[in-house]
């Protein structure tokens, strides 16, 4: 796990905008080149350094994915219950013996997808080169 990728991920979950993250990465690269020491020796671990930046309420793309997935899983449960009471249609006839299993799988998948979205998404383009 590279320092820059780890720092990018930690800055994203603190709600920094992509251009601010790009600028921070440029600073780290520039300072590292000037000092000739590894980034971790100068800035601490990526988690520690990210904590120096104030947390904002801006949602990351991964958080949005998780929210949408969780909302869909809740909607699925509501639809299943309404179908049962209003139309006597048992959702288990279509999805197998456990009513909540698809909803649970969807919710867990969305959490994983959200994490991977923020973690694996490429680092923002350098601002210094623009």
């Amino acid at each position, binding site marked *: 796990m590279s320092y820059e990728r780890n720092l990018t991920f930690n800055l994203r979950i603190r709600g920094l905008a992509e251009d601010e993250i790009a600028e*921070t990465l*440029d*600073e*780290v*690269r*520039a*300072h590292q*080149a*000037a*000092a000739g020491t590894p980034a971790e020796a*100068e*800035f*601490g671990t990526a988690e*520690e*350094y990210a904590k*120096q*930046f104030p947390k904002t309420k801006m949602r990351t793309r991964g958080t949005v994915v998780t929210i949408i997935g969780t909302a869909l899983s809740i909607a699925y449960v509501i639809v299943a219950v309404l179908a049962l009471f209003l139309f006597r249609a048992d959702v288990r006839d279509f999805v197998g013996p456990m009513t909540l299993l698809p909803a649970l799988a969807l919710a867990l998948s969305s959490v994983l997808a959200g994490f991977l979205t923020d973690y694996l998404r490429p680092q923002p383009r*350098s*601002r*210094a*080169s623009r």
Partner: protein
Amino acid sequence: MTTVDWNQELIRAALPQAVLAVLRNGESHGYAIAELLRENGFDRIKGGTLYPLLKRLEDQGLVVHRWQHDLAGPGRKQFALTDDGRTELERAASAWQQMDKALTTLRSNRQEQL
């Protein structure tokens, strides 16, 4: 008895003023600022402390930056003092002198016991 690291306490308080003072002499990049501080008696200030401070000073309008690309490598972020930064440095120096004076008076005066 636990001892207080007075040096660290003072560095934390003096660092914003010290960075503004370095930039009063002209624009500079992060590593050069840290080196100049070290040459003038500060402990080695790491990037993890310096850049968030520079960002705060920039957010307050006391410092501005530009990227310099005339050298090989990743480029350098050059910081410079604004007019507000100069004014703020004077205010900070004045406040520091007042504090120093007050402490000197407290240490030298014989306090009456209440």
